[in-house]
């Protein structure tokens, strides 16, 4: 097959100049056969299974990267929620299981391993309680383990006991990792409507409906979209949407190719492509800058929600045709510390927590990687989680909260996490107290699905 020169150079420019990459190849590994009454045996089984199944994951990713010439930034693993795997253990402390995940992840060379998770949308089992209580120490003593807790869903309502507890767990995790600017909290997500096939961290886990092993791929490319939009300056918004769609199609085709190849070479099943536009702190790889290219002076100002809604929708429309299976979170991510444009918008005072909350109604995930003052109370964090979960529950979408209350730091100060996690200015939190609401506990009933006004 012969190619048009423009097509060839378009592709190479996307890679060399506009940060086109495949963000992550995430291998899902079921640990359902690792249960044992003795937690040390369980830990060993977990370690052995991960090391066997993912032995060639990193090498395969590197081979594909070399052949196709497109960077594959991360190779990761997601596992069955550990609350289910640990439930048969007689021990109540699941930290040894987190250590086993950490050790196995490092052995096979991945940069994160997700699944130190519990799903408590409607209530707790023994394993859920043990897991959640183990989170602060687990995130303190491990390096690459990520944790997530699902506290609600459209079908179940919101577990307010869990919402209350997660506010406390986030505070405890921050305090245990205070010497690292509360880095533990950057690896902990609270979900509503959690998805079983998400390849992105920190919220990846392998859901119970998933196969023994599976390859899920997350694409990226905010820089490519931003660059494509530079060619339609002055055009109407329909033209902008059309350009985003076409660009998303091309980006997703690369993800699809990588996913198929990886699944074939690892002798496993291709799961899904996650059509998320995932930013990085690198210049030219920002979702905020796309919104500014569309015509906002600064992300966070009036017009932000509308432009983001259009962007998110157009990315999905373009990506859907490019891939045979789409899933995961699929939308534009707006993690503050991981996006140069978002960081700037917070620093200049244009982007507030309340506007971020509005943005999460129309795009992927939620309040993500947001540094808040260290003196924010557990009840306030719980209330932020409740608000965000309510948006997810009512709008039938995934929402999440990953906030970092940085001990000893206040509004205007910066916190540095390093690498892909980036850095963030600490954002102001409304200080009126929700304490009595949070203290009630109980469950918010599942919402009515008609009369939708």
């Amino acid at each position, binding site marked *: *097959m*012969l*190619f*048009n*020169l423009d*097509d*060839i*150079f378009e*592709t*190479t420019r996307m890679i*060399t100049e506009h940060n086109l990459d495949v963000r992550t190849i995430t291998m899902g590994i079921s640990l359902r056969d690792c249960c044992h009454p003795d937690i040390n045996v369980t830990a060993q089984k977990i370690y052995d299974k991960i090391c066997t199944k993912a032995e060639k994951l990193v090498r395969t990713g590197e*081979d594909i990267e*070399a*052949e*196709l*010439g*497109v960077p594959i930034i991360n190779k990761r693993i997601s596992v069955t929620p550990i609350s289910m795997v640990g439930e048969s253990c007689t021990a109540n402390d699941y930290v040894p299981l987190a250590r086993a995940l950490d050790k196995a992840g490092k052995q096979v060379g991945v940069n994160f391993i997700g699944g130190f998770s519990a799903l408590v949308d409607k209530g707790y089992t023994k394993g859920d309680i043990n897991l959640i209580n183990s989170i602060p120490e687990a995130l303190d003593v491990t390096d690459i383990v990520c944790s997530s807790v699902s506290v609600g869903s459209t079908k179940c309502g919101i577990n307010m006991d869990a919402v209350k507890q997660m506010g406390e767990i986030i505070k405890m995790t921050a305090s245990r990792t205070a010497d690292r600017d509360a880095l533990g909290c950057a690896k902990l997500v609270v979900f509503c409507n959690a998805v079983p096939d998400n390849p992105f961290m920190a919220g990846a886990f392998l859901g119970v409906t998933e196969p023994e092993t599976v390859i899920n791929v997350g694409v990226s490319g905010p820089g490519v979209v931003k660059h494509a939009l530079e060619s339609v300056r002055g055009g109407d918004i329909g033209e902008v949407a059309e350009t985003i769609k076409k660009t998303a199609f*091309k980006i997703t*085709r*690369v993800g*699809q*190719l990588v996913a198929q190849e990886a699944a074939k070479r690892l002798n496993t099943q291709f799961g899904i492509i996650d059509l998320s536009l995932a930013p990085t702190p690198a210049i030219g790889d920002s979702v905020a800058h796309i919104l500014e290219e569309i015509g906002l002076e600064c992300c966070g100002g009036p017009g932000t929600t509308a432009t983001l809604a259009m962007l998110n929708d157009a990315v999905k429309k373009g990506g859907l045709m490019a891939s045979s299976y789409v899933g995961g979170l699929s939308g534009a991510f707006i993690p503050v510390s991981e996006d140069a444009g978002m960081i700037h918008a917070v620093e200049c005072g244009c982007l507030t927590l309340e506007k971020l909350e509005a943005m999460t109604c129309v795009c992927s995930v939620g309040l993500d990687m947001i540094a808040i003052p260290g003196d924010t109370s557990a009840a306030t964090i719980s209330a932020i989680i409740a608000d965000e979960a309510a948006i997810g529950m009512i709008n039938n979408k995934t929402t999440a909260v990953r906030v970092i209350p940085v001990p000893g730091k206040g509004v205007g100060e910066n916190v540095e996490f390093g690498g892909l996690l980036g850095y963030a200015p600490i954002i102001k939190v409304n200080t009126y107290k929700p304490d009595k609401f949070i203290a009630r506990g109980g469950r918010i009933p599942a919402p009515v699905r008609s009369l939708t006004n």
Partner: protein
Amino acid sequence: MRLVLTIVGEDKVGIIAKVSNKLAEMNINVINVNQNILNGFFNMVMLADMDKANVSIKDARDAMKKLGEEIGVEIRLQSEEIFIAMHRI
């Protein structure tokens, strides 16, 4: 496997010769060449077949990158699959 090589940089004498020579050393067969010079800037795309190559694609990529540095142009070598995925439905 078929490869796409892209070569861009300032025009000078002997770019095609040196690139072809290096490919021949690795037993990589050139199928198609498309080249032009715009404002003194050299742009070339080569389609090649590496089924009988005596090196791996990774080594070929590294060898071409090194050659590019010696000549003073940028040479990228990739499987054609990524271009098919992106530009053909």
